[in-house]
């Protein structure tokens, strides 16, 4: 679903957002955002003033009403811009939620009664523990665990991936999601959730932002923003008495204008939009984060724990070398190896044939159609071919082959043991190749690191993240792969408890740990980790334990999630800095404007040479309002994050948003002042 709806802004979202911008003017909604709430109060007061400028005392002079009205209108626009930003962010989530909801509507289920018969009921009446039957072509009515059967399921409604997946009883592929379609066979499913709590429901709530709570960092920032609002409140409130001392009066509308200019409205207006957009970016990567907190935590990860198989390596060992023993030539070895693998359809077997072809040796299968194919079995731990002429070709575990040879009263070449050990030491897996009762040599099977992994780990290192590889292999094998992939550390012969122990040890040192997993035995560790990315292909238990689910089941996604988390924080920091930096220029516009009548020499501070006090104040206020929509794209897209040292990142962003934030409003306010002057509003 995410991929199709990746368009940024549709007309529908915009028109909906405009409507929402007005709905959100409701003070009961706006009070959750203290900065914008202050603006709204200012708006109400200036509204009243524009009806009767003397209602709060003070004196009336011509043009006062127009001026008050202008201030009120600009304040209203400021709030609307802020609301619009939030509504656009929410709207994009809603569009996705709607497409999800379509998958959910009007489902029915065949529920098994206690008598063993089936009754057709609406899916919404299903409860935890109910057992339902699903037949090919039906929609799976609820999240659950397969009890019986095996079938292929189309999960594209959830994942956007059109290739069907296999789901069956037992093992790590037993969980099914409501709203997906069974394509073949028949499944008995035990329902695992009550209505409204299903995975789909959770996703809908998340993308809609309905269950969005402020994250810890957002809360801390809100506190700082409220604090700054208070400080500027004090500054503005004390200004009128000070003006009285120098025999003047500032006027309520101007004081409100000054206050609104100074308080951090830009970040106040965009803060929740940034948060929602951050979640949205994660979803666009086909990852569902169960909370904003998880995304934020991802930006802070110190340690990343990755499984070796399937994550770092492609999951299968492939032949990488032929090592002859006992005086046999490499050519002889390769020929025997290929014949023994000719009908072997496992990835290992195919890789032997492929490697041999590269070395210039290939045989046509057709020539051996009369041979007997011996499949690999756990007992014999070897496989191969019995030719029609009685020649036996085998490849298999070295000790199994050796036992076979010795059972036939022969002995293995003397250099076999040493070469076997050599391969093991390098982290490879040796396979012995046998012709008749004679060992010809070894096939060096190697774990192949996925292309590009080294670069990704390098990138992580620059982000300050340590990577730890987890594998069931022996330490030698693990060390080799670790070195090849470029991970910082590894645990070999790892049991699920070891992962848990590692996470706890790292957390004990104050580090934040991320991991990915799919199996039920990963669930405790997924829950313990600060960021647990569960694979959608994994078990229900894993998905429940993790705080993110990857719909594409790609464990390396964690790297992107980390970037998104960082981007989210940087965007927040950048716009906050920009917002505060803007105040400098606004001061130079407003302070001389306010005091010039009382202390004429303060005109020297009017460095922008703004036309009149009124135009200066209105220009600053208008700048303050239009900067919000101008920054919406930045808030949505996020500030670019490139892995580099924290100090250079700080300097770069500070130059851009801090220094830029000081300079931009000088230019902006001057331009608006010119416009106001040209329109004849400078002396209202």
């Amino acid at each position: 679903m995410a991929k199709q709806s990746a368009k940024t802004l549709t007309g529908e979202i915009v028109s909906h957002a405009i409507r929402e911008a007005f709905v959100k003017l409701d003070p009961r909604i706006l009070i959750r955002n203290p900065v914008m709430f202050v603006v709204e109060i200012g708006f109400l007061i200036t509204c009243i003033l524009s009806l009767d400028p003397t209602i709060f005392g003070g004196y009336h002079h011509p043009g006062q009403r127009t001026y008050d009205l202008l201030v009120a209108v600009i304040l209203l626009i400021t709030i609307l811009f802020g609301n619009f930003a939030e509504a656009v962010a929410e709207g994009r989530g809603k569009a996705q939620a709607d497409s999800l909801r379509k998958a959910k509507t009007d489902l029915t289920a065949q529920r098994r009664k206690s008598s063993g018969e089936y009754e057709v009921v609406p899916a919404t009446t299903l409860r935890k523990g109910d057992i339902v039957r699903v037949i090919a072509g039906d929609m799976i009515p609820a999240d659950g665990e397969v009890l019986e059967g095996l079938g292929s399921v189309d999960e594209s409604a959830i994942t956007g991936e059109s290739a069907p997946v296999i789901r069956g009883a037992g093992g790590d592929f037993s969980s099914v999601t409501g709203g997906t379609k069974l394509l073949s066979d028949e499944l008995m499913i035990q329902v695992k959730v009550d209505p409204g709590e299903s995975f789909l429901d959770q996703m809908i709530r998340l993308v809609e932002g309905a269950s969005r709570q402020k994250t810890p960092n957002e809360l801390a920032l809100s506190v700082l923003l409220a604090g700054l609002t208070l400080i500027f409140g004090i500054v503005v409130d004390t200004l009128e008495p000070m003006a009285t001392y120098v025999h003047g009066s500032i006027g309520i509308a101007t004081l409100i204008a000054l206050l609104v200019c100074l308080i951090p409205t830009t970040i106040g207006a965009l803060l929740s939009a940034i948060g929602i957009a951050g979640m949205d970016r994660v979803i666009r990567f086909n990852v569902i984060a169960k909370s904003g907190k998880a995304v934020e935590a991802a930006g802070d990860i110190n340690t990343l724990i990755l499984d070796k198989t399937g994550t770092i390596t492609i999951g299968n060992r492939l032949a990488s070398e032929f090592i002859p023993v006992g005086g046999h030539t490499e050519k002889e070895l390769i020929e025997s190896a290929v014949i023994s693998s000719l009908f072997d359809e496992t990835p290992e077997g195919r890789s032997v044939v492929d490697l041999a072809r590269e070395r210039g040796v290939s045989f046509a299968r057709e020539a051996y159609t009369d041979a007997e194919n011996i499949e690999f079995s756990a007992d014999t731990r070897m496989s191969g071919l019995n030719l029609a002429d009685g020649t036996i070709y085998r490849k298999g575990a070295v000790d199994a082959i050796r036992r076979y040879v010795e059972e036939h009263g022969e002995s293995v070449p003397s250099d076999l043991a040493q070469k076997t050990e050599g391969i093991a030491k390098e982290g490879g897996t040796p396979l012995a190749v046998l012709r008749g009762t004679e060992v010809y040599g070894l096939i060096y099977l190697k774990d192949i690191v996925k292309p590009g992994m080294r670069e990704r780990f390098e990138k992580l290192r620059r982000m300050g993240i340590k990577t730890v590889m987890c594998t069931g292999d022996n330490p030698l094998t693990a060390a080799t792969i670790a070195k090849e992939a470029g991970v910082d550390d590894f645990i070999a012969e790892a049991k699920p408890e070891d992962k848990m122990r590692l996470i706890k040890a790292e957390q004990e040192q104050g580090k934040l740990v991320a991991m990915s997993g799919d199996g039920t035995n990963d669930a405790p560790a997924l829950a313990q980790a600060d960021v647990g990315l569960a694979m959608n292909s994994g078990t229900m238990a894993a998905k429940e334990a993790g705080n993110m689910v990857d719909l594409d089941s790609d464990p390396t996604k964690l790297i992107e999630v980390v970037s998104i988390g960082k981007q989210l924080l940087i965007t927040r920091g950048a716009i906050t800095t920009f917002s505060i930096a803007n105040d400098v220029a606004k001061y130079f516009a407003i302070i001389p404007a306010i005091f010039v009548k009382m202390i004429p020499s303060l005109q020297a501070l009017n460095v922008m040479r703004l036309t009149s006090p009124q135009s200066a104040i209105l220009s600053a206020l208008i700048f303050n309002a239009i900067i919000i929509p101008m920054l919406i794209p930045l808030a949505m897209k996020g500030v670019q994050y490139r892995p580099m040292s924290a100090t250079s990142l700080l300097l770069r962003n500070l130059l851009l948003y801090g220094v830029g934030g000081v300079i931009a409003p000088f230019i902006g306010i001057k331009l608006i002042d010119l416009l106001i002057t040209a329109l004849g509003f400078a002396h209202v």
Partner: protein
Amino acid sequence: MRFTVAGSIGILAIIAIILGLGIPFGGYLYRVFTGGHSRFEAVFAPFERLLYRLVGVNPSVQMDWKAYLRALMLVNFMMMIFAYLIFRLQGILPFNPDHIPGMSWDLAFNTAASFITNTNWQNYAGEQSMSYLGQMLAITYLQFTSAATGFVAAIAFLRGLVAHKSESLGNFWVDLIKVHTRVLLPLAVVFAVVLVGLGVPQTLLGAQIAHTLQGSTQTISRGPVASLEAIKQLGTNGGGFFNANSAHPFEDPTALTSVLEMIAMGLIPTALLATFGKFIANRRQAVVLYVLLTALLIIGAFIVYANEVGGNPLVHQALGLSGPNMEGKEWRFGPALSSAFVAMTTAFTTGAVNTMHDSLMPLSQLVPLLFMMFNLIFGGKGVGLLNILMFLLITVFLSGLMVGRTPEIFGKKIEAREMKLATVAMLVHPFLILVPTAIAVVTKAGTSSMLNPGLHGFTEVLYAFTSAAANNGSAFAGLNGNTVFYNLSLGIVMLLGRYVSIIAMFAIAGSLAKKAIIPQTSGTLRTDTFAFGSVFVAVFVIVGALTFFPALAIGPIGEQLQMMSHIVGH
């Protein structure tokens, strides 16, 4: 007299000496408060054990932030009551050779609040309204204990900062006693003796009546001045024995004593930065802060110096006189030493004055005002460091976001609770300066005390509340503070200015102490770089400027612009 090479070198040399002495002294302070042994352990330890036994303190008890703070507040409260009673009753108490009566209730409150908070704002004239008993038992005593209070607060905070999942901030009683026995008392004794040698009186005899050559009589006040003077500077107190403070020849007889006094006031505030560096085991962090804060101090001192030697252009124009602005200055110090003193007494929040700030040129006035508004150019004993840490917290929060991590300071995560408390600590300062100033300038009670009308009068009031809020105590003069209105308002501002931020910082220390220390990685924002240091300076300068710009525009900035426009007008 113009901007002289000798004067400039003099200012730089004093600052260099302060740093040269302060930095190694910071190492000593670190050892004192981490249980290290001193070379004089055989002297200190038995004496301290005796004190512990006398007051019934078990020195091995560890206190969490609440217990520590409770003890600190209780002791401060008791001492304030004690001082208040002395001031009220000094007329009937001994050591009162000049028969000085007890103070009025409001003046006694103001003075007690002033000295318990290490402010040393003086609405009384020492030689006329304070008995020797009051000078010794209340003033000198509080100059020790108030300095010690700020000091131990900073030490306790540093302990919280480096604690790893712990509750303990140390033991208040042990810290309080050690500050006295191992830091303040030895230094004060030595310095007092040096001052006596350089001509500062130390006597319990009453005022001397002198018969002048013209045959008239003159009363020459004296008393136990040297002992008070020593701790006045060392404890960044600033409350003088005489009304004229360090401009009085008995407090600060020569240029040499003036230099020594500046060194004394700078010693511990600068030392504490090194102590901080030792605590967090990061020398670079201290170096960065030293460089930047020293640069600001030097810039401030030279702004004052340049404006003062430049003289008053209006005087030049009207009378044809040229030369430095010597109004309110002592000839024996000259513009360079006076300018350095102005900058340092407000940077270190001492508040002693050897020149009348009221008579400074408008732009020169801006420097002490800004230094007190920032309140962290090294800052006062302990509390200066606390302010530095508070702004570091806020800077780290903003810049931490900008590098894409939830912010952390020295390995501790900063969350909503810390931000809330830091915001309170940050908020209270502008509140205490701006609100009372605004009230004062529009009420009869406030304006009737002003000596000058117009913008200068405004600056006088602004300066008074800034000095009180910053617990500086330097007086602008030109404002009659001894009225019920100012006694009460300034007293309350001093108390809130001191304790609200101490309480907030203690709560932060408590919550930081409990957190685990996160190890540094290459993704961690390093705070010990000049890049970060510059952001730190930018944050407190911009926040300070944004907060106080309107008030300063009406005050010194407006006055300066007015002055310049008059020249153009002629």
